[in-house]
């Protein structure tokens, strides 16, 4: 296995993940429905988590994983808020009281 180093693999992974990010961005740009955009944005967030985790190993600074955890958690909050806004038109609703909005 000469010529194949961990750094090369990590670089390949980063480039692959960024290719996926481009694809997700294209889907976010094209739509057609707003849900496609949300889906693409959510996927983009996960890919950023991966990118940062891999970049941390690539530059041997694994404490960047804190950042990846923040992404994984905060991205969820954002997506849920967006889905909620889509469905109810505001953020204050508790999802139970009114049936048809």
């Amino acid at each position, binding site marked *: 296995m000469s010529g194949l180093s961990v750094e090369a693999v990590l670089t390949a992974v980063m480039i692959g993940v960024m290719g996926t990010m481009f694809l997700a*961005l294209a889907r*976010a740009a094209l739509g057609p429905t707003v849900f496609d955009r949300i889906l693409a944005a959510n996927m983009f967030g996960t890919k*950023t988590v991966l990118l940062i985790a891999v970049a*941390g190993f690539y530059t041997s600074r694994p404490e960047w994983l804190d*950042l990846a955890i923040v992404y994984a958690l905060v991205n969820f909050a*954002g997506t849920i808020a967006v889905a909620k806004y889509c469905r109810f038109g505001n953020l204050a609703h508790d999802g139970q009281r009114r049936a048809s909005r």
Partner: protein
Amino acid sequence: MPIELILFLLLFATAVVIARLKDLFAAAMLTGIFSLVSAGLFTLMDAVDVAFTEAAVGAGISTILMLGTLSMTARNEDQQPFRWLPLLVVLITGAVLIIGTLDMPAYGDFQAPAHQHELYAGFIETTREEIEHIPNIVTVILASFRGYDTLGETTVIFTAAIGVFLLLGHRMKHEQEPAPDAQPDDPSEAGNES
């Protein structure tokens, strides 16, 4: 570095997509993507604290706050007639900014003035010796060396919250009567069923 170049391209593509979108809702979400990409870029530049802020603020809270704003205002951008003067202003400003960047040091240049200045060496080298119990230099500089500055920043946030209280708040009481205009029509409904 090629990876940072790709990320810059991604950033540029996101900005173009945001500018072209008419749907403000989708634009708000793509702003989240924009800050995700820029946070990735900051990470690769080794500015982890900045990336942390960008991640926490841009991806989470600011998307939610923008949604809150959208639920109070309109969802779609108003179609403005084409005007020459704003375009001219934008072009000139952009050109000036690009000319300005020509004078800046190259990306990651070790000879850049910021790295050569005596303060840089002073901060980096003496901080570790003086305050050995705190490994994160950024925290030390922000909270101790530049404590006044951070106090000012905190006061700015405080002032912003007070401003929002004054503009939007009616003491946040529960007993307020529901204003009829405070409840926007579900924007997607019109597009769906027409």
